[in-house]
């Protein structure tokens, strides 16, 4: 048994000794260095670029401008390609652009012998723009007179989808209904992985190799091919260890540009190492979403009708497109089913940094709105928030018509019970309600559900390869990527479990190389342990069959009477150990009668999805005069099915909780209204949580094995980041009676709100 044990991470030793190599550690010392010239206006057309002064700088090898790049438009989203043109991602990027659409867009690039020369040359390039008006707010951008970013998208609307169920207009006429309405707004935040995006590229023959810090090597291969207009097979992507991703590296960022620059200097190795400031402005950010919710309730606390409108700030380019807002909207009617619904979600282009995937993919924004609104309802109805949720939340037996996801057991109820008990909810809810002084305590909570992987919206597939060594150990190769979450360890445990060998005998190859690694889509959508599990189990069973067959040849025992247990070949009829797997493997390779290198490889296409559930509870102390909030206690409870590695699962939840707290309390990117410039593009002014900004993080689990899953598991990667912000907001509401509907809940936000409500 290996699944279910808290074994040590397979990569921990290399990471605590400094032996683990990341992209920059592997780059040759003598690489050429590339730097990008970013626009210093929010919207305009490049009229002229004068590179003469820059070219005169010693060490400059080549300057490439927006007038020199190939004409191919390409998509950047880390989605599986669709062979149906109607389902393909929006192709709105070129490598360098003549039409700049945000402050920080990519206009030109310098390749130089060293970083200093490259930086000096970037500063020496003179760009002449024709400036155009710009717009930063999503709803403002939808107005008829707003500046247009992309001609193909009138009113700047990249996407608009809706849900209609029952008859909202008729339903709200029911007598005696109580209306609750609110606007909820989440800020633009950034992933802040500690390793910035970096890549380097070199040519061998006509082919280009790009070594990159990416979550999605096989997808980046396709996008580099599309961007350069070359056959996809001419591109090779290598992904070494990476220093975090959180969705930012689920886009092709600068890998296509790096590959192109390499071709412009005769295939010499070119490195494009992005600075922290560029990571904030010119990579991807989380969509800021403004949501408007109206609920009509009966006095018994049941929903009669609900309406939702979401306005998602897409920034300047489509990236992941409308998927984020659509996913957030989709969560709304499933969490609290209601017979009469009107939901609309809009993704709107603005002249702001490009929004893409970020841990939770629209659900943290949606749950902030949704779960804040539920507590607003409870205040009006004077109902306990947990009682209200239990009455209205997704019932056991609920099946979603589209995904076919099913709520098999009362996971939400079990999670709530566990969290409630841990934090002593009932007693504190009552006790804190009595607080009246300047410093008051409060307790709040929020629930959520989350999908596992992307089926049926997109393809779900995973491939795996196993190779048996002479000593009975195996190499395991997956197209799915280790980005810090611990998937390599979980994969090794799964392979060991099905094959019947000790986990130490599984050597997982952490790096992906698109020339060598079986096809996989990569790390996103909390998919990997779920989808990877199918491919591993199927491939391990194939491998086992071959081993049984070979053992049968050697021993004349029937294959069906042979099993592998703890690395030994066993006769199952009496449990006798016939030989070790190592003995068999050595014989199989060196046999003079039947030499066989035992390997297996297979692809599994997954046509299932699974609901993952959970909740968060937060206890706060609010200093009203100082507008400061101290988090006293915080807990997340998850049902992600069977825990493959409980210690790693817990660690994953800690990280998500910290991100949820940052989203709730302190993080936001600020933009200058006059220029569109990002004002706090650094880790000093952007308030990422430090060790001092939250209390001990508590993670608990409920384990209801997922019936559709190869190993009983389902999504856990993103869900931990979801409930923190609404739980904290609801705790502040409990403490102060003030419903704060704008994140982050920092003193700036609270001061305005407390003042308005007469607390100050």
């Amino acid at each position, binding site marked *: 048994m290996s699944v279910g044990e*808290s074994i040590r*991470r397979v990569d921990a030793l290399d990471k605590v000794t400094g032996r683990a190599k990341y992209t920059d550690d592997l780059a040759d010392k003598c690489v050429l260095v590339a730097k990008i010239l970013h626009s210093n206006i929010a919207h305009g057309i490049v009229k002229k670029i004068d590179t003469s002064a820059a070219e005169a700088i010693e060490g400059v090898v080549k300057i490439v401008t927006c007038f020199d790049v190939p004409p191919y438009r390409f998509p950047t989203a880390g989605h599986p390609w669709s062979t149906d043109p109607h389902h393909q991602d929006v192709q709105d990027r070129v490598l360098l652009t003549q039409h700049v659409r945000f402050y920080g867009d990519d206009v030109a690039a310098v390749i130089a012998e060293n970083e200093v020369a490259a930086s000096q040359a970037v500063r020496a390039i003179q760009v002449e723009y024709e400036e155009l008006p710009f717009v930063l707010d999503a709803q403002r951008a939808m107005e008829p007179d707003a500046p247009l970013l992309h001609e193909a998208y009138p009113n700047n609307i990249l996407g608009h989808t809706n849900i209609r169920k029952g008859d909202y207009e008729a339903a709200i006429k029911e007598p005696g209904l109580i209306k609750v309405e609110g606007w909820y707004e989440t800020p633009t935040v950034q992933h802040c992985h500690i390793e910035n995006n970096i890549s380097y590229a070199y040519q061998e023959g006509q082919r280009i190799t790009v070594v990159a810090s990416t979550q999605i090597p096989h997808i980046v291969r396709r996008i580099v091919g599309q961007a350069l207009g070359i056959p996809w097979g001419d591109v090779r992507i290598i992904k070494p260890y990476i220093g975090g991703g959180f969705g930012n590296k689920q886009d092709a960022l600068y890998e296509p540009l790096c590959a192109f620059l390499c071709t412009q200097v005769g295939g010499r190795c070119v490195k494009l*190492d992005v600075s*922290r400031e560029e990571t904030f402005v010119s990579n991807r950010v989380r969509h800021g979403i403004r949501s408007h919710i109206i609920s009509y309730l009966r006095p018994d606390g049941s929903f009669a009708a609900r309406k939702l409108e979401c306005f998602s700030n897409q920034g300047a380019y489509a990236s992941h497109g409308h998927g984020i807002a659509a996913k957030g909207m989709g969560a709304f009617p499933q969490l609290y089913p209601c017979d009469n619904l009107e939901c609309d979600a809009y993704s709107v282009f603005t002249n702001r940094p490009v929004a893409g995937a970020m841990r939770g993919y629209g659900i943290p924004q949606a749950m902030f709105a949704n779960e804040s609104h539920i507590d607003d309802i409870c205040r009006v109805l004077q109902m306990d928030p947990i009682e209200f949720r239990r009455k209205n939340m997704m019932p056991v037996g609920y099946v979603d018509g589209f995904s076919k996801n099913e709520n098999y057991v009362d996971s939400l109820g079990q999670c709530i019970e566990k969290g409630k008990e841990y934090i002593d909810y009932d007693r504190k809810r009552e006790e804190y309600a009595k607080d009246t002084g300047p410093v008051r305590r409060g307790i709040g909570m929020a629930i959520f559900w989350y999908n596992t992987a992307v089926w049926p919206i997109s393809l779900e597939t995973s491939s795996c390869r196993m190779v048996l060594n002479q000593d009975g150990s195996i190499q395991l190769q997956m197209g799915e990527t280790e980005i810090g979450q611990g998937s390599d360890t979980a994969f090794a445990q799964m392979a060991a479990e099905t094959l019947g060998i000790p986990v130490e005998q599984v050597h997982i190859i952490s790096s992906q190389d698109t020339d060598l690694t079986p096809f996989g889509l990569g790390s996103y959508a909390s998919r990997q342990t779920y989808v990877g599990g199918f491919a591993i189990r199927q491939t391990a069973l194939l491998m086992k069959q071959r081993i049984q067959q070979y053992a049968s040849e050697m021993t004349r025992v029937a294959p069906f009477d042979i099993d592998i247990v703890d690395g030994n070949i066993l006769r199952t009829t009496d449990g006798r150990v016939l030989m070790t797997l190592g003995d068999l493997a050595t014989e199989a390779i060196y046999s003079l009668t039947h030499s066989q290198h035992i390997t297996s490889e297979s692809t599994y296409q997954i046509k299932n999805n699974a609901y993952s559930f959970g909740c968060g509870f937060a206890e706060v102390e609010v200093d009203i005069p100082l507008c400061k909030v101290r988090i006293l206690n915080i807990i997340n409870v998850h049902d992600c099915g069977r825990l493959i590695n409980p210690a790693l699962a*817990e660690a994953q939840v800690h990280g998500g909780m910290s991100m949820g707290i940052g989203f709730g309390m302190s993080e936001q990117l600020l933009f200058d209204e006059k220029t569109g410039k990002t004002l706090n593009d650094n880790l000093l002014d952007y308030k990422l949580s430090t*060790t001092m900004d939250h209390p001990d993080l508590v993670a608990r689990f409920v384990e209801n094995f997922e019936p559709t899953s190869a190993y009983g598991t389902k999504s856990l990667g993103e869900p931990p980041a979801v409930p923190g912000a609404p739980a904290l907001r609801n705790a502040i509401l409990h403490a102060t009676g003030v419903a704060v509907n704008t994140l982050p809940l920092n003193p700036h936000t609270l001061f305005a709100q407390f003042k308005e409500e007469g607390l100050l």
Partner: protein
Amino acid sequence: MHEVQYKLVKCTINGRPVQTMVDVRASLTDMLRNDYRLTSVKKGCEVGECGACNVLIDGECFNSCIYLAVWAEGKNIRTLEGLLGPNGELSDIQQAFIDETAVQCGFCTPGFIMTAVEILETGKEYTRDELRKLLSGHLCRCTGYENIINAVENTMHKRLAAKK
């Protein structure tokens, strides 16, 4: 041709006396990574905000990205690579990071461990809140810091118990 100014820097790195010519504009991060290939010294911001490049200089922690290489003259510098014992044994704090699941992507890990070394070498007992403050110069996006603080705290208690 523009003449780059170089200077000979002699120092001790991980117990070994070394010397090399460095560009006077180079940071200590550059020197450690490029000249000595000590790639545990990571670059996360290059302006002293994230702590990924942290190393010990004469027993004290510094963000090496904002410390000039030429200032290292005569100094005793320690990086994560220097923590292993003579036969490759892990130090107690490295083992604790493994055992407490304090490692995820691993990019901030070297910097954190070197600050932990500084804390542990004081031989003092700190409260958990004090440890939080002492570790607050490092940013991590994966772990929520929980297990990192546990690793440092547990190692501190073990060392203090061993002294008694």
